[in-house]
């Protein structure tokens, strides 16, 4: 009888016998999870393997959820693939992501004291595989949830591209309730994961007075508080740390203390119920972001202008490219393709009126991206081109604060 992954097997090597479960292997070796829990690999040429017992489907333990509490608000959880709950099968070592409300609440029981939940999988994709088209559907789903009476919406998202999706929703939706993005930097299957604290703080914000799209993630490396970031001012600034998300060119909107759940705000924000629910999710996804580097050939721009409807440049310093690029920019804007200038400094405002090159760049028709981050400018440009094809209209949109992405005064 042949053995399959998941079967209990006996492996005989010389006079020794090993008992365990057959595991998947990426080498030629047979990998067994031994009774003591360890995985070990055997060269199949040196051992014989017998079936001990066919694998059995483990019946998931049925669990009682606390009943709907009429005194608590109703919050919707939409999942896009970012995992906020996991289950580990210690028999096989398999880790599975969990998306149902039941599973999330079992993993993070504190959530049940904050709200009633309705959880749904919107996408199940890796963060890096997110596409602008998916923002549109997500925006529609959020819209529908709010319309159906959700007091707040939590969106679980992989952290790599969370800032793009969050910014996109900020442009697409006018919301009278909180729409909160949350994720985890350390996998949900580990006891130290930041998933639970981030989710609890996100639920606190989702049931708070802070209407609008925000990102709620760890504020420091400790489990002491989460920061609440405006969706258009937040950027992932570290590959792996819990406090990777930082507000750029802005203070965070506020913080949620853990475990108390106390919310403190630092900035003005729209209050619950102030705005009418509205959606405007048209976009032009064919936009691109080009980084100017020393020696970069203007052909990059030439290629972009032939293939895209809008271009954001991440220039140096105050927003510069080499003089060699200027005629190409001019040709691009003349062709009706908006070119937005941002800075690779990330922090600070673009200003092309200071140096000669800058003034030439302005004359070539560049739109200054103010204190927008390059990525946010890109998302905004897609959205702006979804609203109008008129380059002057686009310029007006790009230089007007639509969703908190441009601040009038740069504060220290």
């Amino acid at each position, binding site marked *: 009888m042949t053995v399959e992954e998941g079967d209990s097997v006996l492996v005989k090597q010389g006079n020794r016998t090993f008992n365990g479960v057959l595991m998947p292997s990426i080498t030629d070796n047979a990998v067994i999870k031994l009774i003591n*829990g360890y995985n070990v690999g055997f060269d199949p040429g040196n051992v014989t393997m017998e079936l001990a017992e066919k694998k059995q489907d483990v019946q998931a333990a049925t669990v009682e959820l606390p009943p709907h509490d009429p005194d608590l608000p109703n919050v919707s959880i939409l999942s896009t693939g970012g995992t906020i709950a996991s289950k580990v099968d210690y028999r096989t070592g398999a880790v599975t992501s969990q998306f149902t409300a039941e599973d999330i609440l079992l993993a993070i029981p504190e959530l049940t004291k904050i709200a009633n939940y309705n959880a749904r999988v919107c996408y199940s994709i890796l963060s890096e595989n997110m596409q602008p088209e998916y923002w549109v559907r997500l925006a529609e789903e959020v819209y529908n949830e709010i319309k159906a009476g959700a007091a707040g919406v939590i969106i679980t998202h992989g952290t790599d591209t969370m800032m793009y999706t969050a910014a996109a929703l900020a442009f697409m939706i006018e919301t009278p309730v909180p729409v909160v993005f949350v994720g985890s930097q350390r996998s949900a299957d580990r*006891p130290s994961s930041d998933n639970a604290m981030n989710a609890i703080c996100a639920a606190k914000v989702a049931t708070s007075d802070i209407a609008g799209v925000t990102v709620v993630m760890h504020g420091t490396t400790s489990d002491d508080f989460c920061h609440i970031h405006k969706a258009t001012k937040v950027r992932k600034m570290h590959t792996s740390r819990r406090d990777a998300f930082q507000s750029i060119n802005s203070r965070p909107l506020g913080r949620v203390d853990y475990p108390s759940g106390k919310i403190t705000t630092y900035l003005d924000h729209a209050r619950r119920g102030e705005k009418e629910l509205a959606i405007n999710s048209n976009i032009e996804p064919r936009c691109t972001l080009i980084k100017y580097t020393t020696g970069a050939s203007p052909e990059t721009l030439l290629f972009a202008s032939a293939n895209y409807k809008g271009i954001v440049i991440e220039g140096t310093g105050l927003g510069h490219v080499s003089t060699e690029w200027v005629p190409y920019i001019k040709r691009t804007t003349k062709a009706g393709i908006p070119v937005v200038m941002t800075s690779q400094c990330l922090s600070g405002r673009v200003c092309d009126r200071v140096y000669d090159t800058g003034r030439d760049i302005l004359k070539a028709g560049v739109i200054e991206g103010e204190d927008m981050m390059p990525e946010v400018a890109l998302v905004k440009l897609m959205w702006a081109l979804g609203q109008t094809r008129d380059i002057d209209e686009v310029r007006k949109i790009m230089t007007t604060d639509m969703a908190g992405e441009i601040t009038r005064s740069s504060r220290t």
Partner: protein
Amino acid sequence: MSSKYDYKQLGLMSGLEIHQQLDTKEKLFCGCPTTLRDVEDSNFEFFRYLRPTRSEMGEVDRAAAEEAMLTKQFVYKAYDTTCLVENDEEPPRELNPEALNLTLQIAKLMNMDPFDEVFTMRKIVIDGSNTSGFQRTVLVSTGGYIETSQGKVGVGVLCLEEDAAQRVEDKVDSVIYSLDRQGIPLVEIGTDPDIVSPAHAREVAETIGMLLRSTGRVKRGLGTIRQDVNISIARGARVEIKGVQALDLIETIVEQEVERQVNLLDIMEKLQSNNASVPGDIVNVTNLFNQTQSKVIKKALKRGVVLALDLPGFAGQVGREIQPGRRLGTEFSDYAKKSGVGGIFHTDELPAYGITEQDVDTVREAVGARDGDCVILVADLEDRAQGALQMVVERARLALKGIPEETRRGLPDGNSAYMRPLPGAARMYPETDVPSEVITRDMLDSIELPELLPERKARYMEELGLNEELAGIVASKHLELFEKIITEVPGINPTLVASAFDNGKHSALDTPYIDSTLVASTLVNTLTKLRRESELTHDFDIDEVESHHYVDLFKLIVSGGAAKEVIPVLLIEIAQNPEKDIEDIAKKMGLGQKRIEDIERSVENIINQRIDFVKEQGIGAVGPLMGEVMKEFRGSVPGKILSNILKEKIEARLNSSE
């Protein structure tokens, strides 16, 4: 050693689990050094909570559940020698090849045939001792053995794992850990339960320790090796005693655990014949103590209560000694302390602690105790006291059935105290951030077995003429450095050394010639003295002196650039200026061979002038003459060197004149 028990007849089964830190350059999963730090040197601190991960199986481990009950904050101390990997803020790097290689060498020493592919696993540990909530561990081999006087003892497990963070302080609702230790590579060696007597346990531990030290690449010193002992007797239960740091204790630990199990079995029989039972009713007797003279109870009553528990049929047994100085009551107390109380009282030891005979009588009456019952009292905050007595109920019920399976903490006197229930099967799943390692035949074949310590010691005595003590210490403690010096410094040719010894006497002052005894005694004696001095004065840190410094130092001495008398002074100078060239240091100090010869001549002159005094005083003349010698050099030569030379010259003169 005459023993109290016939261990064979009792059916003693014992196994050891030995954890030994490896002396690798980097940690197991990051590039940080494997050095331990003072907590005061911590430059950063953060805190976390841990929560158990949900399991597919839905089962809850008893030990994990007890740990999870306490929602503690874990505070971590970080250093300029730790990184984001220790902080659980960055994925681990690949498994340290140096550590894996060393583990394969250890596998060979234990007659093991490692698996063809090994995997880093995550073993769930949620007491905060690992920032991640799991310990990374690799099973490298099973099925080995070592030879002992009682035959082969199986070595069932060889794991390579990361050490946990060091527990610095326990507070009421937080625990402080130091991250310097987390991630240091560790081998875990588990023997089969083949150990037959306490003395055998000690022998097995010593043998494994010797094999590990023979590699020359394991850490030395307190806390670098930790031993757990598993013990059971035929009618008893498996008990794991953790954290035995001293080898000498292993034998006593086993003896006293056997004694404990024998006594607990006897208590069980007595209790059964007394028809003892544990109804478990907890009675509030606070009002009986309104007028008490007991200071302990008065203090507790300021904010708390006194609760009582009747144990029918337990009288006399709770106060019975089961290990030297420990009673069944002590075991009750260990359990009770888990809920935060300081301890318990039981009527087998009362009246005492200011609790009077009358107090005891009224309490007995209040709980309806009969003769033959034992009553337990706890005075503390109400929920703590309640929790404490519930734990006593649990332990008392176990006493009726025999011996509970437990993890216990080894105590310095060879006893042990309750820590937690034995953990269930380890909860493990793969560490997906670390690729597996394929162990090839070539890798195994290329690993050479080290010379074992006893062999090496014998060789040093025979070939290098080291005395037994020096040979033993150098072979086990300074092996790598010693070998490096005697191979890299050309003047220390072992065969020349041997013949020099045959010829007998020589003086290093006459020729720049040095031998391996000088090297060995520098490493063993001089360094020990300097280390003590540096700990007292903090003028220098002797650990700043690295192996290349020693090589340069002895090269300099061989070439006559410095005299052997100045070794201690030079070492201090190097420790203070590790970046400087040794030759320059010696030149600057003017302590070359030539200079020493000048000093010797001057010293001899002084001795000649005072020869009568020297003959009269003998070696006692050193002190008085030292003043004159010092005056001669007016601080240009360190006093230590002058006194060494003076002593040597006076001795020589006294010997020659006899």
